[in-house]
């Protein structure tokens, strides 16, 4: 049996907040920095998304279904592509038609909702799944949580939603002596398969590729294929999970990353007994070797591979708590405007900007925080969140008043009722008129 090589790329862009001051609370509800968002999306689209998509398309044309990759694209990234770089969506759609590309499910907002006990996580995943179907004609069967965050409980929730498999990190403190190069299962529900990131081989590309002080620099495709062969004697599957921005943005085109990727499949085919598969194919092919115990959440971030990058200090905990405290209200109101902003406020990036822990490793997220200090990030976020809470509560009151009126009118039959009925009949007539005129046009 051939070994499996599984490429998975993460694509996410948060909708960045503007400087939102205390004086804006209750007055202005535009939270986002259009200019920064647009210029960032345009820049990365031109440097990374478009050229790399073309490269993958070329490879698929050359090798057919022998070359395969998988993506997860957050809803907030897709929305911003639609606004600022629609050609990126078109190019992903082209990839979707090749049959060599699997699109994974995730939270729409790249949210930390899986760590809250609200059902926001399920809501987010459902919304993202619908988006995948709409744009790419695929119903995802594999789930990838934000930054590969995973725990036994999260796995159980994911299995309950009907997913077959899930990606996470091969964190050493969880694996111990075990190898990440096999398929594992969730402890509570063994039907959910787990694919674990091979950190060393993934980080060779994301972190070290252009590092001149690295003794292996420069990294060439044949050297990499040899490593793959030599280091995985007793393995079944190697999972290379990375940010898509590695190609062209974090590792600039000048580093030769595109040429590397262009020639890699050739060496894999000629030097190794690996075949390219997508996650859903991989879990069908390989038998799981054991359940994996993950009592506390892990992720692919930092040296610690835990969630302290997002929820590691009082600032982050407070922001997180306040954000999910209003979730039931937002869900009950189900107002499109509120839903939209609520989703955007969930992006894990906002919490990452508030981190105070030192950058111990060469942070491979290459995060450039728009804030000078975590404190400013916190203040700005909380100002926005405070305004959002006010809006939620206002709408709640309005709805309650409206409900009361309706029940009152129902209780007291008479003129009032009739009048209101006539009025409502009129208004519906008007709206239907409007619709019909629109249709005519």
């Amino acid at each position, binding site marked *: 049996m051939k070994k499996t090589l599984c490429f998975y790329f993460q694509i996410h862009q948060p909708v960045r907040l503007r400087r939102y001051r205390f*004086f804006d609370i*209750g007055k202005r509800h535009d939270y986002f920095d259009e200019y920064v968002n647009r210029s960032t999306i345009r820049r990365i689209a031109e440097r990374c998304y478009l050229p790399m998509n073309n490269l993958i398309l070329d490879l698929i044309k050359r090798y057919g279904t022998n070359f395969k990759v998988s993506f997860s694209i957050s809803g907030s990234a897709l929305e911003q592509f639609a606004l600022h770089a629609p050609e990126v969506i078109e190019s992903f759609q082209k990839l979707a038609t090749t049959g060599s590309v699997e699109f994974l499910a995730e939270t729409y907002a790249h949210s930390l909702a899986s760590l809250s006990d609200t059902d926001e996580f399920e809501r987010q995943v459902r919304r993202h799944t619908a988006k995948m179907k709409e744009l790419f004609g695929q119903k995802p069967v594999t789930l990838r949580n934000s930054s590969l965050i995973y725990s036994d409980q999260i796995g159980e929730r994911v299995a309950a939603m009907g997913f077959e498999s899930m990606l996470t990190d091969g964190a050493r403190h969880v694996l111990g002596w075990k190898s990440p190069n096999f398929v594992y299962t969730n402890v509570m529900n063994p039907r959910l398969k787990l694919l674990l990131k091979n950190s060393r081989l993934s980080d060779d590309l994301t972190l070290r590729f252009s590092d001149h002080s690295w003794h292996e620099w420069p990294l060439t495709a044949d050297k990499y294929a040899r490593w793959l062969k030599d280091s995985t004697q007793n393995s079944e599957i190697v999972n290379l999970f990375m940010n898509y921005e590695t190609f062209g943005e974090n590792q600039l085109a000048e580093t030769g990353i595109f040429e590397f990727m262009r020639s890699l499949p050739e060496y894999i085919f000629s030097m190794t007994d690996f075949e390219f598969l997508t996650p859903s194919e991989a879990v069908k092919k390989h038998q799981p070797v054991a359940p994996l115990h993950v009592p506390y959440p892990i992720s692919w971030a930092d040296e610690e591979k835990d969630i302290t990058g997002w929820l590691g200090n009082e600032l982050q905990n407070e922001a997180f708590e306040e954000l999910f405290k209003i979730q039931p209200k937002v869900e009950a109101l189900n107002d499109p405007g509120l839903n939209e902003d609520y989703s955007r406020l969930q992006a894990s990036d906002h919490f990452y900007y508030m981190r105070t822990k030192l950058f111990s490793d060469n942070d491979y997220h290459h995060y450039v925080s728009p804030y000078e200090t975590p404190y400013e990030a*916190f203040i700005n976020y*909380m100002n926005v969140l405070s305004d959002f809470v006010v809006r939620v509560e206002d709408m709640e009151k309005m709805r309650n008043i409206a409900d009361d009126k309706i029940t009152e009118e129902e209780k007291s039959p008479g003129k009032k009722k009739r009048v209101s009925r006539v009025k409502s009949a009129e208004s519906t007539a008007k709206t239907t008129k409007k619709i019909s005129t629109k249709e005519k046009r």
Partner: protein
Amino acid sequence: MFGWEFPPHIAGGLGTASYGLTKGLAKHGVKVMFVMPKAGGDEDQSVVKIINASDVEMMSEYSNLDEYWQNVNFMEIGSNLVPYLDPVTFERTVKETIKTGEYSEHIVFRNKFQFSGKYGTNLMEEVARYAMVAGTIAAQQDFDIIHAHDWLTYSAGIVAKKVSGKPLVIHVHATEFDRSGENINQQVYDIERRGMEAADRVITVSNLTRNIVINRYGINPDKVVTVHNAVDFQTRGDLEIDRGVKEKVVTFLGRITFQKGPEYFIEAANKVLKRYPNVRFVMAGSGDLFNRSVRRVAQLKIATKFHFTGFLRGDDVQKMFLYSDVYVMPSVSEPFGISPLEAMRAGVPTIISKQSGVAEVLKHSIKVNYWDIDALADAIYGLLAYPALGKVAGEKGLDEVNQLKWENAALKVEDVYKDVLGM
């Protein structure tokens, strides 16, 4: 009059007070010549003649005077002990000490010196040079009395007194104990004490400060006089504002430093929020306890009701007052504290700490000990929950603050002048 700052270029209350006082003095026919290290050229000169020390050329003959030296060289000696001494000065000092074994006076003081007029790393050097320039000015200009504001200008006052023989009044707006608690900078303390000793009269902005001057600096009580500050109503802008937040707003406005007691405000806010949810707290300002305060607010989980604005300037300060329903100044040590007066001027009821000079003059303000978080929380709750209380305190406070005029303060200063001149 020697001062370090003058509106519009100000960092704190010192410039505002200097301006108010000169205006008040002008009403009583006292002519003021105001020497500042670096004038912007846009100062209001209608009531005062501004002399920019950066424009004054040193007279070389003065730099040879022994007497001159005795007054200023202690700072030069001390300067290589200052943590923020620049390398050039340090090298010069060291070289000259090695060469001659003593300090020589053929000095760079001879030419014009560009003062920054800020509170930067060369502050000690600027203070010394300012004093040298003061000597020149004292010899060139005609005046009856010297009035120096705060420690930065005390040395200038001393030199001017030596050169001219005219009486010196120093005006204590703050002492080193107010700024640093018990961990005082000895060098600053020495300059302060020297100034107070050399002065014919010492004016303090409150009895609180007067006691510090007498007890901590050992100054003869007979020559220490309290003249409370006032507020200037001329600058009041007619700013109208529509508030975005529906809740009541409780404000702390000032530097977020040890002296201002921000932590007591946060703890009290936490207590109030437990009982009275319909309120937001705002901490406006910046300072070295800023990050710690943000962290504490997050820890207490009150961050959706407790906001930070950062440093506010210009109209935003007025806007903040107009946003407020209660103004709190929980200062640990405040020689005077002009900001509650500004709040009262906007009709906002105030809570001030008993450890502030302004507490001596205000009747219609709630006074608490800064450490008494329960009392502070209680007072805030009272003003929020019982509208009548807030209304009365606001209205009476406005009346009261209207009585605090610089004219009246200036009259007392004028009395001090007359007294030292034997008039």
